[in-house]
């Protein structure tokens, strides 16, 4: 087994699962039934994407299954971006996170379609169709909130300020990515930044929102397993059943 490829696929899978799990926390709590359903549907798309990726990773490692990878690893072994695990906060923060993350996934999957890895190409092709909806839906909400009432506007600004420092690591290749980029087995995320900025600034301009000044502090660590407290609490809930009743299924 090539450890770098395994780690890279886990990183992609963890991003989708952890973001999907966070969004699923809105199920039954959305501000209206339509938004509740939208959030649950997007969560389902992401958990589905993570399943495809975990199954692929599991095929590379003896004894691993999609379930052992999702439910039996500890926080230090997860390689998701910090922005995925951060708490939902209010609707504005959830929407802003989804928008930043979906725009990133959209750039990433677009480039993943030309990697020299047939399975990743297939997963990217499939996922990209779904992510296109996520970008548009969350982008519409960014505009609605930013260009809404003074209250919604101030919440959007707070959300952007809180999340911005977590966007830097999206474009910092981890060691396992650096090892794979020359052989076109991983996307060079550093090259996605301009494209991503272009995607988000168009929407933020329409929303009347501004980004923090360039060069502001960025926090990284998630991609190499250095997480915030938020991930441990999330895993405690998400993994509870498999930890308490090992191997249970229904």
């Amino acid at each position, binding site marked *: 087994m090539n450890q770098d490829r395994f780690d890279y696929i886990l990183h992609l899978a963890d991003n989708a699962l952890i973001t999907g799990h966070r969004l699923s926390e809105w199920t039954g709590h959305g501000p209206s039934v*339509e*938004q509740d*359903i*939208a959030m649950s*549907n*997007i969560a*389902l*798309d*992401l*958990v*589905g*994407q993570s*399943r*495809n990726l975990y199954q692929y990773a599991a095929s590379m490692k003896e004894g691993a299954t999609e379930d052992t990878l999702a439910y039996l690893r500890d926080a230090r072994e997860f390689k998701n971006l910090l922005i995925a695990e951060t708490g939902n906060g209010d609707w504005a923060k959830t929407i802003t996170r989804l928008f930043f993350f979906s725009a990133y996934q959209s750039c990433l999957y677009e480039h993943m379609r030309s990697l020299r890895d*047939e*399975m990743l*190409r*297939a*997963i990217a*092709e*499939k*996922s990209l*169709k*779904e992510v296109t*909806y996520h970008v*548009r*839906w969350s982008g519409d909400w960014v505009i609605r909130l930013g260009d809404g009432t003074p209250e919604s506007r101030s919440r959007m600004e707070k959300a952007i300020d809180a999340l911005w420092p977590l966007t830097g690591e999206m474009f910092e290749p981890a060691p396992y990515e650096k090892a794979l980029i020359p052989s076109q087995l991983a996307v060079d995320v550093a090259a996605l930044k301009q494209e991503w900025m272009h995607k988000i600034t168009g929407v933020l301009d329409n929303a009347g929102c501004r980004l923090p000044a360039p060069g502001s502090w960025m926090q990284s660590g998630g991609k190499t397993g250095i997480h915030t407290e938020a991930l441990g609490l999330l895993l405690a809930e998400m993994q509870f059943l498999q930890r308490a009743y090992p191997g249970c299924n229904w």
Partner: protein
Amino acid sequence: MNIVPTDNMIERIRGLLEQVPDPEIPVLSVMDLGIVRDISIKDNRVEISITPTYSGCPAMDAIALQIRLELVSHGFTEVTIRSALTPAWTTDWMSDAGKEKLLQYGIAPPAGPVKNRVALSELSPPCPHCGATGTTLLSEFGSTACKALFRCTACGEPFDYFKCH
């Protein structure tokens, strides 16, 4: 049963799969939906390749199980079901009969081929209940990921629209 790879045998299996409903939209068979990508026979074993509509479609496991049950109950005991992600499923693969069944069931079928797709907010699919064309989008996401929610301004009824995907 000796399963020989002839056109007749494949046709027979295809006929059986036409009896396997989608668990979410039971008027559609898996053949109508266009998710069966390949049927083949090798060494007395039937191989079926299916593709998910959406990555997170929760019905896929149930569909694979139902296909297996249908085939086993008709004597095809050795069955392999594979999931194929590529090429990615599109509503263009839905049969015309399937689209008609959707309409009768109260779900507006996808409007035209994917290459001519317009934004949902600009779309006004005819109401499957009264046929009026004045309909408005309520939500890009309906009761499942593959559908959006519309409302008819003539009869006032909300309805699902199967998204062009």
